Structure formats: structure tokens, C-alpha cells
């Protein structure tokens, strides 16, 4: 019986079995941002420990950074304090740091791949649950807590139990107007928000084979929303073509050697999986969330569910979600009025996301009562988009065009919902209060669907709009 990519990467990075039975796992690439790291550096200092491999950790700033202000010190005093903390920490430890002055700042899960830091066969960790994004390249990548950030800094290892592996195969083709975001929302809708606990998800089949790296990143990014800490796609020519020529990727002289190692690390044809799920790509519609977790999701032409459909605590969950969202059971989700439209986040802020959104927005006009903003995932994405004129398309349609950061995905910077505003959002979490207002309401969807909703002022089936 063959091995999965998970098996091979795990074996290659296993330092030893710890007395408690977990694996001491070597972390090949460690990424750090300003929110979950200051306490880790503090704990390290308190124990008198040094950073073991400063050249295996890379830092940036994304969560708190303002996207409409570039002058230091920031007006937001707390943001300024957190920036000073990470600047001091990287300076004292020698960790490479991509701040705005480098032209390479951005959301940690956008810049890792963009710089070629993220490569197949690696183990990758970051104090951020969306680290699963990097699995798009065939890496085993997961989010860790701050104490584990400390562990990686001190030892380049963590204590972790090996997950089981579930192969999720999506066959066939996606319909026009259906995107990677819809695929992962459909998977989470089917398997539930805790269906992946204890599993790594291996995404396979025609639909993933045909996806670009940007699209694979969108899918792997939201693995954690389905409960799976790790999600990956086996590396292939699409991944290798993406990597070639990037700053930290193997150079041309080494590329063939690297490619062989990457190819060998992919799951064997006869690999054994702990579970398998098969989905038909044609069955997937543009998806929209109606509730307060990403599993509370439906096709844009479906009707909002009723608590009467289910029993027990689940009934309470639906009622609770509907109460928060102020939605009516049995009503269509299409036509729900929106107040804010947000294109951005580590899920959907890459160049292809912005192109899809711009294609829908072009020639339209955001109504005056809707606030719409586009927040590129990185400085490089922003530059590329501007070279293509996408910023002009968005501005002409009434969108704000911002600097790179996490922005309204989690509203740790000044971009926040107000009161009970409804936001059509290309981000990853529709949790209560997620976008900065405890009463705020989030509808997750693809960037194209967000652009469609922005222009129409309400949730709209992007398939019904002229597709460029």
C-alpha cells in the first residue's frame, strides 16, 4: 500500500515520538504576524531562549495595518504599539521582515506563496488558523497558538498528533459563475463545520486539477472552517509553473532537482485514506451563507432554512442564526439587501480574485447607500492590479481601492461594520461580531458574487449577470 503526501511529509519532518505519544514535528517554514507573536517573543525572553533558526521564520504585518493610511505613527495608538513591538522583535532576533517599505508586505498567506517561500513538501506553521492556505502547494500547513509560536521560535518544532486523512474528490467541471469559493463552501455545507476535526483534507479530482494556484489557495484556506486544520492539493505542473522564477523558490539550476523531490512527495496512486468523499462539480451553484458559521450556507437560488426542519440543539442553532441575521425562513436568499461589500482577505484577495470581481463590476455602479471596498492581499497584488487598470474599473464603479491588509475580514483595523449592517464579503468567517460590530451580519460568497451584490445593492446570482 502506498503513502499519502501527509504520510511522506510527516515522516520527513518527524524529529521523534514524544513521551506523551505525539510527534515532535520539525517546521520547515514559520510565518509570523503582529497579532499572535508579541507574547511569544516575550515568553522566549522570560525563559532566556534564543530563536533557533531565524532564517526559517519570516514576518509581516497584516491584521491591524490601516488600509487607508500609510504615515507613521498611525493614528491608532494601539496599532502603532503593536508595530513597534514586531519591529523590535524581528530586529533583536534577525528574522526577515516584510513591512511596507519593502514593497512585499501583505497578508501572510498571500505573500508566502507570492515570494516563493511556500513550496511543496514543506511543513509550515503560523499563529493563524488560515495557514492551511499553503497546502495548495502540497505543503502540510497549519495554524498554531501563541505558545506554539514560542515553541517554533525556540526549537523549530512543535508537539502535534498526526491527523487522519480524508480524500475529497470533486469530479467534472464547474459551471460558469461558479468559483473555488463556491466549491469549498459546498464542501463545508455538506460535511459541516466540525466534520474535519482530526483530519487533513486532501483535495483531488478534475476540478482541483484544473484550478489555478490562486483557486487552490482559496479552497485550502477554508479547510479550517470545515474543522480540518490541514488541507492540501498534491503538487503538479501548475504548482511548479507558479513557483518558477519567484524570489525564494529554487533557482533555475536547482529547479529540476527540486521538481523531482516535489513530485515524489505527492500521494501514491495506491495510497490508503481513512475516509473518502466524492462530489460532482456540476452540482455546485454559487454559494451564499445565511447564518453565523460557514456551514450555514446554501445555493444562491435556494430558500433560507427553517428551524422546524430539524430537532434538538440544531434547531436552536438555526433559530439563533436567523435571529442574528434577521432573515425569514422559507424566503429566498437572493434579493437580500446589503449595506457593505468587501472584496479581500486571505481567502480571496489575489490577482485572479480581483480580476473576477472587476469583470462583474465593470460598467456597473454601486448604489450610494452601499459602501464597497476592495483590499488587495499584498503590495505586489496591488501593483499588478493597477498595471492592469483594475483599480480604475473599481473606482469607476464606486468601490474604494485600498492598501494591502486583512481589513474588514476581522476588523482589527479601522475598517468595520456599523450596527447591524449586512456585508457581502469574500472573506472566510460569518461569525457574530466578526466584522467589527457585534450586531453586524456577514454573507460569505465569491468575489464575483460580492461584486454583483455591490452593483445590484442586494444578493444576486452572478450567473444571471452578463459575464464580461
Amino acid at each position, binding site marked *: 500500500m502506498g503513502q499519502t503526501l501527509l504520510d511522506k511529509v510527516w515522516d520527513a519532518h518527524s*524529529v521523534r515520538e514524544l513521551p506523551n505519544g505525539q510527534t515532535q514535528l520539525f517546521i520547515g517554514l514559520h510565518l509570523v504576524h503582529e497579532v499572535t507573536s508579541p507574547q511569544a517573543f516575550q515568553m522566549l525572553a522570560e525563559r532566556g531562549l534564543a530563536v533557533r533558526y531565524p532564517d526559517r521564520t519570516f514576518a509581516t504585518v497584516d491584521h491591524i495595518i490601516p488600509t487607508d493610511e500609510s504615515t507613521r505613527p498611525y493614528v491608532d495608538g494601539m496599532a502603532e504599539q503593536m508595530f513597534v513591538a514586531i519591529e523590535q522583535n524581528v530586529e533583536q532576533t534577525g528574522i526577515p521582515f516584510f513591512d511596507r517599505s519593502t514593497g512585499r508586505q501583505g497578508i501572510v498567506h498571500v505573500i508566502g506563496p507570492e515570494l516563493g517561500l511556500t513550496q511543496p513538501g514543506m511543513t509550515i506553521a503560523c499563529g493563524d488558523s488560515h495557514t492551511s492556505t499553503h497546502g495548495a502547494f502540497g505543503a502540510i500547513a497549519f495554524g498554531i497558538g501563541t505558545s506554539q509560536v514560542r515553541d517554533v521560535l525556540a526549537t523549530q518544532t512543535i508537539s502535534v498528533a498526526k491527523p487522519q486523512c480524508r480524500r475529497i474528490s470533486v469530479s467534472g467541471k464547474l459551471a460558469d459563475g461558479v468559483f473555488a469559493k463556491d466549491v469549498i463552501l459546498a464542501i463545508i455545507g455538506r460535511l459541516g463545520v466540525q466534520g474535519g476535526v482530526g483530519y487533513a483534507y486532501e483535495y483531488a479530482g478534475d476540478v482541483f486539477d484544473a484550478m489555478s494556484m490562486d483557486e487552490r489557495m482559496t479552497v485550502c484556506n477554508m479547510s479550517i472552517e470545515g474543522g480540518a486544520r490541514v488541507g492540501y492539493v498534491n503538487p503538479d505542473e501548475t504548482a511548479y509553473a507558479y513557483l518558477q522564477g519567484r524570489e525564494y523558490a529554487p533557482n533555475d539550476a536547482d529547479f529540476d532537482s527540486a521538481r523531482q523531490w516535489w513530485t515524489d512527495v505527492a500521494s501514491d496512486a495506491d495510497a490508503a485514506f481513512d475516509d473518502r468523499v466524492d462530489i460532482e462539480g456540476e452540482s455546485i451553484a454559487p454559494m451564499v451563507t445565511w447564518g453565523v458559521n460557514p456551514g450555514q450556507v446554501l445555493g444562491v437560488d435556494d430558500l433560507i432554512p427553517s428551524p422546524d426542519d430539524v430537532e434538538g440543539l440544531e434547531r436552536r442553532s438555526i433559530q439563533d442564526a436567523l435571529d442574528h441575521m434577521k432573515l425569514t425562513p422559507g424566503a429566498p436568499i437572493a434579493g437580500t439587501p446589503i449595506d457593505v461589500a468587501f472584496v479581500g482577505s486571505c481567502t480571496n484577495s489575489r490577482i485572479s480574485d480581483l480580476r473576477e470581481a472587476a469583470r462583474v463590476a465593470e460598467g456597473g455602479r454601486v448604489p450610494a447607500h452601499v459602501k464597497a471596498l476592495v483590499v488587495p492581499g499584498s503590495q505586489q497584488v496591488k501593483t499588478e492590479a493597477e498595471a492592469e487598470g483594475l483599480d480604475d474599473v473599481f473606482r469607476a464603479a464606486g468601490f474604494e481601492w485600498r492598501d494591502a491588509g486583512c481589513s474588514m475580514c476581522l476588523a482589527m483595523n479601522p475598517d468595520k461594520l456599523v450596527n447591524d449592517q449586512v456585508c457581502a464579503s469574500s472573506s472566510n468567517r460569518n461569525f457574530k461580531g466578526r466584522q467589527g460590530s457585534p450586531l453586524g451580519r456577514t454573507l460569505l460568497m465569491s468575489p464575483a458574487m460580492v461584486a454583483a451584490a455591490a452593483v445590484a445593492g442586494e444578493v444576486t446570482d452572478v450567473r444571471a449577470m452578463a459575464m464580461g
Partner: protein
Amino acid sequence: MSDDGRITHVAGTGVPVRGNDIDTDRIIPARYLREITFETLGPHAFEDERRQLNGKHPFDDARFTGASVLVVNRNFGSGSSREHAPQALMRRGIKAIVGESFAEIFFGNCTTIGIPCLTLPATQIESLQSLIEEEPETALEIDVGSGTITAGQAAYQAELPASVREAFVSGEWDALSSLLESNDAISAVHDRLPYITGWPAR
């Protein structure tokens, strides 16, 4: 906790927080992550929900003041990897959590800071929550090694993965000391990874 870090028993009263899929944004809203220490988080646990419930949240209910065992439902702690969530609960006085199930990163974060998370079937969680609501002064005692939870006259047999149980009982739930022991083995793995030390010539 004993002086040597071993966590074998947790005793105290309980507080039930009902609901499935209670995410870490609800446990600690992101605006409280704008801070370079964990020390001030305790008062902000469940802050937005508590405000909306206007004093009716269990964390504001005087009957549950001083509780050290939190009893929750399914998939507690889903979402973000923020260690701020268990840190806020710990600084609020929570020493153990009993639930139907937990999100993976949250569970690991709790373990690393010394909060055992034990699981019971849904019906028994319901029974334990009701018991605490009816008799909030009920003394709870968790035997971490065996997984036995006694609540007044009632007893429950909870589960904890063997590796995690071992970590608490031996006092090695904070893995750093063990990780630091394998200095040479860490170097060996580092040195054999081609993406770090160089690709072989072809």
C-alpha cells in the same frame, strides 16, 4: 496544579454555556487582540454576548460566580487559532472544560496552557448542564487520569486522548521542555531537508 506542574484533579463549581459551534470570536472579540500581553483578557471573555444578554449570560450570573469548570456543547472553540480565547477563560478562573466536542486548535491551545478539555456524549452534557443550572453550588471533581467526573451524587465517565491525559498527569502539558531536549535530533532533520540545506545536483 501541584508544584511540579502535574494536573491530576480539578475541583470547583461549574458554569454551563449552552450552544453548538461557539467560535473563538465569540469567546474573545478580535478588538481585544490589539494588545501585546494576555494579562488583561479575563474580564472580556464572551463580552459581546454578555452585553447583548444584558446580565443574563452565565458568566454574569451570580449563581455561577467563582466557577472553575466550564460545560459546553458541540465544537466549542471553532474558528481562529487565537490563544487569547483560552487565555481569557483561564484568567477568568476556568481550570477545565467539559463538552461534547472541541475544535482542534482550541483544544491544543488549552492543553498547552494547562486546561484539560474532556468530552462526554451530548445527552450527558445536557444532564450535567441542567444539574449545574438547578444546583449551582454542586461540587464538581474531575479526575484527569481516569476521566471520572463527579457532580454531587452523579458520576460521568469522560474521555481525553491518551497523549493529552499523559501530558497533564506527568506535568508535561507545556511541551517546550521536552522539545528542547532533542537538540541533536532537530539539527539532523534540519540538515536532511533539501529545501533548507540545498538541492542535490542532477
